[in-house]
C-alpha cells in the first residue's frame, strides 16, 4: 500500500470550500423554499461530507477495497432509512 501524498494546497482549498458551504447552508435556511429547505440543507451536508471523505480521509486515493467498504456502508444506511420510511410514506395509500 503506497500512499498518495496530497498537497497542503489542496487541503486548504477543501477547507475553504467547506467554510463557504457552511455559510451557504445557513443562508439557505432563511430563504422560503417550502419542503425544499430540508432537501437543500441535506444536499449541501452530503456534498461537504463527500469532500471530507474523499480528500481528508483519502478515499479518493485509497485501494478499491476501502472505497467499496465506504460505499457499502452508506448504501446500507440508505436501506435502513429508505425501507423504514417507505412504510411511513405508504401507510395512507389505499
Amino acid at each position, binding site marked *: 500500500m503506497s500512499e498518495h501524498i496530497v498537497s497542503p494546497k489542496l487541503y486548504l482549498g477543501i477547507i475553504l470550500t467547506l467554510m463557504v458551504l457552511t455559510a451557504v447552508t445557513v443562508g439557505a435556511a432563511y430563504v422560503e423554499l417550502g419542503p425544499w429547505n430540508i432537501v437543500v440543507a441535506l444536499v449541501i451536508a452530503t456534498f461537504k461530507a463527500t469532500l471530507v471523505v474523499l480528500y481528508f480521509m483519502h478515499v479518493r486515493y485509497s485501494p478499491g*477495497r476501502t472505497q467499496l467498504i465506504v460505499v457499502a*456502508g452508506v448504501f*446500507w444506511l440508505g*436501506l*435502513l432509512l429508505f*425501507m*423504514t420510511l*417507505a*412504510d*411511513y*410514506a*405508504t*401507510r395512507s*395509500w389505499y
Partner: protein
Amino acid sequence: MSATESRPAEQLPEKHYLNADYGIRSWLLTTDHKRIALLYLVSVTFFFLLGGVFAGLIRLHLLTPKGALLSPEVYNRMFTMHGVAMIFFFLIPSIPAVFGNFFIPLMIGAKDLAFPKINLLSWYLYMIGGALALYSFMSGGLDTGWTFYTPLSSVYSNSAVAPAVLGVFINGFSSILTGLNFLVTVHTMRAPGMTWFRLPMFVWAHYATSIIMILGTPVVATTLALAGMERLFHLGFFNPQLGGDPVLFQHLFWFYSHPAVYIMILPAMGVISEIIPTFSRKPLFGYKVMAGASLAIAIVGFLVWAHHMFVAGQSAYAALAFSFLTMLVAVPSAVKTFNWTATMYRGSISFQTPMVYAFGFLGLFLVGGLTGLFLGTLGTDIHIHDTYFVVAHFHYIMVGGAVMGYMGALHYWWPKMSGRMYSETLARFAAVVLFVGFNLTFFPQFLMGYAGMPRRYHSYPPEFQIYNVLSTAGATILAIGYILPILYLLWSLKFGPVAGRNPWPSTGLEWQTASPPPTENFEVTPVVTWEAYDFENRPDLGLDKPVIPAGPASGHD
C-alpha cells in the same frame, strides 16, 4: 473407527496452548485466540444451562391449562429470561465466538486473529453484559419478552428492564468486535497459497456472519439505548402519548434481530459444510455456489425484517415488499440443502458422531426452513403470527439448526481442541436422543399454533392440553440429550484416548498441526497447495492407497 489403526498411536505433544502457561492470570489475560475460545465455551455453556433451566420450568408449568407451577408474573419472567439468555448470551456468540475464534486462524494458517487484544476485550464485554443481565434476572427479573417491545418495556413493565437493556447493549459491542476481527483476519491474515476459493466453507460462513454483525448490531445498540433512556428519563421516542411511535421501535429492533437469526444459522451451516465432505470424503458439491449462497443469505436476509410486523400496523404495501424479499431469501437456503445432499452422492460415507449431528441438522433445518414459508407468506401469516407455530418454527431453526450445528462442531473439533477422543457409542446415542427429544418437544407446537394457541400465555384453553403434554414429555428427553455430552466430554478430558493430529481424517489446515495445537498454531507458516476438501490429491492424510469405487468417471465442474 478411523485410519489411525494402521499407523503407530500418536502421543499428545509436550507443549501446547493448554499447558503453555499456568494460573488464572494466564487465562484471564490471554490473547491467544484458542484460549479465548475456551473462555467463551465455558461462559456460553453457563448461559445455555441457565436458559435451559428456565425452559424446563416453562414446559413443566404448561402441563395443565391453568398452569401447574408458576404465577403469571414469574411465568412471564421465565420466558423472557429464557429468550434473553439463549439468544443474546448463548446463540449469537455460540459458534462464532467459540469455534470461529478457535478455528478461523487455524483454518487460514495464521498465528492469531488480526487484533488479539480486541478479541480479549470482546470476551470481557460479553462478561460485563452477561453480568448485567444476571443482575437484572436476580433483582426483580425481566418480563418484557426478549423483544423489549415499547411501550410495555419503556413505560408499563415493573421489572428490572434497565440493567437487562444495558447488558444486551454492551454485549452487542462484543459481537461487533468479534465480527470486525473476523473480517480483517480473513482479508489480511491468510497463509501463502490460501486463496479466497480455497477457504473452507466454515470461513466463508463466518465472513458472511461478520458482515451482519458489523452492519446490524450497532442499530440494535442504538435502539436499546433509546428505549432504555425512554424508560429511565420518561422520554417519548417510542411512546405515542409523548409523540413517539411504537412501530418505529419494531423497525429498528428487527433491522438487527431478524438478521441475528442468520448470525445463528450461517455459522451452523458452515459447520455442516465441513462435516459432510469430511465424512463423505468428497469435495463439497458446488463450492462457489455455497459461498455465494452464504453471502446472499447475509445480504438479502437484511432486507426482510418487517416480516415480523405484517400485522403490526405497517403499510400494506411495505408488507408486500418485505414478503417478496422474504421469499427470495428462501432460495439460497434451499440451494444449500440440495448441495449438502448432493455432496453425499457417490461419497464414501461413514457415520461417526459429527455426521449424525449433520443428518440431524439437515432434517430439522429442512422443517424449520420450510415452515418459515408459512410465516413469510402474507396470507398464512395473518393466521399463525404470534402463535405457537412461530415458536415451533424458530426453535427448529435455532435449536434444530444452530444448536445441532454447535453440537456437531463440538464433536467434530473436540479431538483438536482437547487432544482426546470421547466415547463414540455414548456420543451417537446422545445425538439420537437429542433428535428424538427435540422433535417430540417442538413438533406438537406447530399443530397447537395452527389450532390457534397464542405465544407467551401462562394459561390456556383446555383443548390445547394434549399438545402441551407431548411437548413437555419431549423436553425431558431433550434435557437428557444435552446433559449426556457434558458428562462424557468432561470424562474424555482425562480418560479419553489420544486423538492424534487428524483422526477423521479431514483436509483442513487445522488438522495439519498438533492436537492440541501449539500457542503459535503452526511450527512453520504453512503453504497451501491444494483445493478445499480435496481428498484425491492428499497422500499426507494417511489414506495410503485410496480406493475409488468403480463406476463411470464424472467430469469436474
